[in-house]
C-alpha cells in the first residue's frame, strides 16, 4: 500500500469536512442572497462576495489538517514526508473538484439562467469571470490552493515553534506591514501601486500566485520535517 495514497484516503474518510460542509456553507450563503434578490424590488444587478466563504473555509481546512490530522498520522506510523505529499495531493484534487463545480455554476448563472432570473450574480463575477471559463477555473484553483497553504503554513509554524513562534511572526508581520503602509502614504506610492495592478487581469494575478503558493508549501514542508507531536 502506497502510504501517500493512504494519507489521501485517510483525509477522504472525513466526507463531512471535505465534501459536504464547504457546500453547505456556500449554498446557505447563496440561498440567503437568492431570497433577498427575489424580494428586493430593484432592477439593478446584485453582485455579492458570498463566494468568498468557500475560499475562507479552505484556509480553515488547512489549519485543521495540521492540528488534527498530523498528530493522528504520526500515531499511525506515517512519516512526515508522506503526510505532506498526501496532504498536497488531497488539497490539489479538492481544489480542482471545487473549482470545476464553481465554474459550472458560474456558467449556468451567466449563460443558462441569467442571474437565476432575479439578476443575482453570485458565481459569475465581474473581473474574475472576464477571461472566460478556463481562466476562471485557473483563478479559483490558484486562490483556493493559496489560501489552504496559508492556513497550513500557519499551523505548521505553530506545530514547529509553538505559540511563541506564531506570536513572533505575527508581531513581526504587523510591524512590517504597518511600516510599509506608512511608507506608502508618505512617499505617495498608492497611485503607482494601483497602476501596477490595474495592468493585470485576474488570470495574471492567479498565475503569479502559483509560485508564491509553492514557496508556502516548501516552507511548511521544512517546518513539518522537524515538527514533533
Amino acid at each position, binding site marked *: *500500500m502506497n*502510504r501517500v495514497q*493512504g494519507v489521501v*484516503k*485517510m483525509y477522504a*474518510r*472525513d466526507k*463531512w*469536512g471535505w465534501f459536504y460542509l464547504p457546500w453547505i456553507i456556500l449554498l446557505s450563503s447563496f440561498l440567503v442572497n437568492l431570497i433577498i434578490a427575489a424580494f428586493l424590488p430593484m432592477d439593478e444587478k446584485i453582485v455579492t462576495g458570498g463566494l468568498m466563504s468557500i475560499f475562507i473555509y479552505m484556509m480553515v481546512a488547512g489549519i485543521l489538517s495540521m492540528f*488534527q*490530522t498530523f*498528530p*493522528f498520522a*504520526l*500515531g*499511525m*506510523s*506515517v*512519516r*512526515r*514526508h*508522506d503526510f505532506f505529499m498526501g496532504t498536497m495531493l488531497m488539497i490539489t484534487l479538492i481544489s480542482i473538484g471545487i473549482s470545476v463545480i464553481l465554474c459550472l455554476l458560474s456558467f449556468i448563472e451567466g449563460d443558462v439562467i441569467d442571474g437565476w432570473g432575479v439578476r443575482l450574480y453570485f458565481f459569475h463575477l465581474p473581473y474574475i469571470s472576464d477571461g472566460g471559463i478556463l481562466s476562471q477555473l485557473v483563478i479559483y484553483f490558484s486562490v483556493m490552493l493559496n489560501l489552504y497553504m496559508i492556513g497550513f503554513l500557519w499551523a505548521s509554524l505553530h506545530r514547529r515553534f509553538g505559540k511563541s513562534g506564531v506570536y513572533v511572526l505575527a508581531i513581526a508581520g504587523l510591524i512590517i506591514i504597518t511600516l510599509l503602509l506608512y511608507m506608502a502614504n508618505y512617499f505617495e506610492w498608492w497611485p503607482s501601486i494601483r497602476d501596477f495592478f490595474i495592468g493585470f487581469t485576474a488570470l495574471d494575478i492567479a498565475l503569479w500566485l502559483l509560485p508564491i503558493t509553492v514557496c508556502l508549501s516548501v516552507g511548511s514542508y521544512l517546518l513539518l*520535517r*522537524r515538527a*514533533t*507531536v
Partner: protein
Amino acid sequence: MTAIVEAKRLTKVYGQHTAVDQVSFQIEENKIYGLLGRNGAGKTTVMHMITAQLFQTSGELRVFGAEPFENNEVLRQICFIKESQKYPDSFGVNDVLETAALFFPNWDRAYANELVQAFKLPVKRRIKKLSRGMLSAVGIIVGLASRAPLTIFDEPYLGLDAVARSIFYDKLMEDYAEHPRTVILSTHLIDEVSRLLEHILVIDEGKLLLNEEADALRGRAYTVTGSAARIDSFIAGKKVINSEMLGNFRSATIYGSLLASDQKSAEAAGLDIAPVTIQQLIVYLTSGSARKEATVR
C-alpha cells in the same frame, strides 16, 4: 538474538531540563518488555524517540538496524499506542480502524472486529464522544490488531476498569503466543503486568536504573522481619533499601539475592524472610528516601 532497538547514550534535553540522560539499552526480538518508572521519569520521551516523533539531543538510536527518522522501512513495522494520542474530530471508531488498516501491513481486520466485540465498543460513535476508557480501548485494539513487529503501549489503559484490563492482558498474551513480536509496555500498574513481562527497564529521573530479566529481578531483593537487635546484626554489611520499625520489631528490605548461608543464619536467629514483588522493589528503588539510604549504606 536480534536487537530491534539499540540505544547508545540517548539524551534529550529541554532547555535546562535533561529529560533523558545518557540512556543505553537494547531491545531484543520477540520479547515483552516493561518500561517502568515514575511520572516524568522520561519513559514517554524514550518511546517518542524510538518512533521518531521526538528527536534526541545526542546519542545514537537504531531501530530495526536503521535510523527511524523518516524511514518507512522502520516506521511501518512500529505501532506506538499512547495515552495522549489525538484523533481528528470528525473520526468515528470505524474511521480509526479503517485508517489503521491502510498503514499497518499486518493489520488483521477480523481480529480487530473480534476485539471491538470484546471491549463492547460502539463502532459508529465519534471518538470525541467516547468515554476515557473506551478511548483507551480504541488504542489497545489498534495496537493488537496492527500486529506490528514492534508494538509499544504507553499507559494504554487510562480509565479502563479491571475487567477490561484483564481482557487486554489475556488478548495480548493469546495473540503474542500466536504471532510473536516485540512489545514494550509502559505502565504504573506493575503488579498487574509483572507476570507478562520478560524483561524490565526502569528509568528514574532520566537515567536507566535497572535493565534486567524479570525472573532475575524477582529474586533480587527480600525482606527480613524480626526483633530489632537481631535484624541489625543480620543486615550488617548488606545493602538495605528500606527499613521500618514497629515496636520492637524491625523489617528490612535487602537488595541482593538471598544466599543459602544467609537463609540459614536468618532461620537460626528466628527471622522471617519474605520475597519482594517487582512493584515493591521498583517503588523502593525509585522513591527518593530509599535511594538515598541505599547509597548511604
